[in-house]
């Protein structure tokens, strides 16, 4: 496009493209309000499902290898987003945001005729706007050979290799559970700071944290129950702030836990032998190094909950 093209009349192609873009926008809006999947998205997913379009998978070749040997067929890369504005609670918004994204991801997976979505990563794109956050999920919808497509595909927030490992041990990762809680402590007599004491616990702040964490974990349990009988791989995120209002200190403690829910049969050990190896390599090697699977809460990883 040249500098003065703006003064030219748009060509018929440009007009058609503009109309198509507006159509896409309108369909997307309708979808977000609970309507049907946009037609372009449906075409992409159904094309991959029917084999008229190439399948697309976030799996690495090693994961493709293991998926194939276990009868899993990749269908399509699926993703979902929910951008939430926090009006009354940043903390509780996380549960709402991920739950909504999860629901949409399942809708895409359903349209792709999948049994499961693997390698689901939780992502956050920072685009400015401090009181809002984006909740994005990206993963690969797969079909299990010999099974009918599922009406309610499971969502596994683990890489394909781990998914297969879990399946062999009769454990099915099923979804994401979120627990979140926050509380304000109004320190009316300014006793939490204890500036003039020696070595002594601050019972008010200890109590605050204990309550917040316990409640967040209760919340996690309640959120996980409909999806499975356990959770794995917690991501813990906690923050605290102090503020002063009317000459009184107030403290905020917030705690968010995100975890992979699993449906595990008790007492079924891993069927494989485990070989013990000594890695002669000094420093990090693929055997010893791990990379975090999720990016959304990375900035606060060093702070664990318990």
């Amino acid at each position, binding site marked *: 496009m040249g500098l003065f093209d703006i003064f030219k009349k748009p060509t018929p192609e440009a007009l058609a493209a503009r109309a198509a873009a507006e159509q896409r926008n309108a369909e*997307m809006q309708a979808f*977000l309000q609970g309507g049907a999947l946009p037609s372009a998205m449906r075409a992409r997913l159904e094309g991959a499902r029917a084999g008229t379009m*190439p399948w697309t*998978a976030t799996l690495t*070749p090693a994961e493709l*290898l293991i998926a194939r040997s276990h009868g899993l067929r990749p269908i399509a*890369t699926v*993703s979902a987003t929910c951008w939430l504005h926090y009006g009354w609670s940043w903390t509780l918004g996380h549960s709402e945001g991920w739950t909504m994204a999860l629901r949409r991801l399942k809708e895409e997976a359903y349209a792709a005729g999948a049994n499961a979505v693997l390698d689901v990563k939780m992502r956050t794109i920072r*685009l400015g706007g401090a009181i809002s956050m984006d909740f994005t999920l990206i993963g690969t919808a797969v079909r299990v050979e010999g099974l009918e497509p599922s009406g309610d595909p499971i969502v596994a927030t683990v890489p394909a290799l781990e998914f297969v490992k879990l399946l062999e041990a009769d454990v099915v990762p099923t979804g994401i559970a979120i627990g979140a809680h926050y509380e304000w402590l109004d320190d009316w007599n300014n006793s939490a700071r204890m500036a003039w004491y020696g070595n002594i616990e601050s019972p008010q702040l200890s109590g605050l944290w204990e309550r917040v964490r316990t409640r967040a974990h209760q919340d996690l349990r309640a959120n996980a129950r409909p999806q499975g009988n356990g959770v794995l791989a917690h991501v813990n995120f906690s923050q605290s702030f102090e503020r002063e209002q009317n000459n009184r200190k107030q403290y905020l403690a917030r705690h968010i836990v995100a975890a992979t829910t699993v449906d595990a049969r008790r007492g079924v050990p891993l069927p494989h032998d485990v070989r013990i*190896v000594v890695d002669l390599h000094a420093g990090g090697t693929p055997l010893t190094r791990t990379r975090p699977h999720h990016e959304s809460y990375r900035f606060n990883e060093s702070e664990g909950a318990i």
Partner: protein
Amino acid sequence: MSMQIPAHAAERLKGLRSSMHSTGVFTSDFSVNEFLLVRKAGFEPIGLCVGSCVYHVGIQYGSWNKNQELEVLSKAMYHARELATTRMRAEATAMGADGIVGVKLTIKRLEWDEHLLEFIAIGTGVVHGDGHRGFRAHDGGPFTSDLSGQDFWSLLHSGYRPVEMVMGSCVYHVAHRGLFAGIGTVGRNVELENFTSALYEAREIAIERMQFEASAAKAEGVVGVDIHEGSHGWQTHVIEFFAIGTAVLPLDQEITPEKIGEPIMVLSVND
């Protein structure tokens, strides 16, 4: 005859197609493990292939309150990458490579002009050790892939071969919220549907385009799909979604799932 010419020398004497670069030296950016695995897979590196392109990215502004694709920028980001990869592929063709492994795509901003971006594609050209030509892309040229040497070995052992590095790009302007839009939502948690819709749309368009490229390359599927979000010096509400992966086809002699070896579980007892 009692004297046997060593196989390697015999190949050279045939002179039909050397598995070496014409200078007799191969270059690559492989690590030792990658080198060993690529050779284990039956390939030999011949030379580093580089393609680059300095591109002047045009100007396009989105309407302040509108969600829209910025086609000028989308096309620029796509075209420039394509030029870089095509040039890299031309280099590979010139040295007689059957394919390129481990392609890395990078974008650099040139300091003196914010509209100038340099796109670089680098990968290692490889030839099949036995001169098997069945690994080439559908147009008879070298295959391209962003797979590492390790990934390349794994892919071949899962019954697939790489065909083409495929990508899709979409630069999108995310609408600003109106000045008074916040008033109605004070004290409530609400979804910002225009933001959600913008990210969704842009990502979908990028994936769609990548899938379309794979279809044009007559591939069966795309492995290792990665979706990048980035901004290359644009305004705050402009974001690029870039989908990239390697399009694959089953091997001529297909490996059935039952033939795939079972991995052994190990526990590293280093510290």
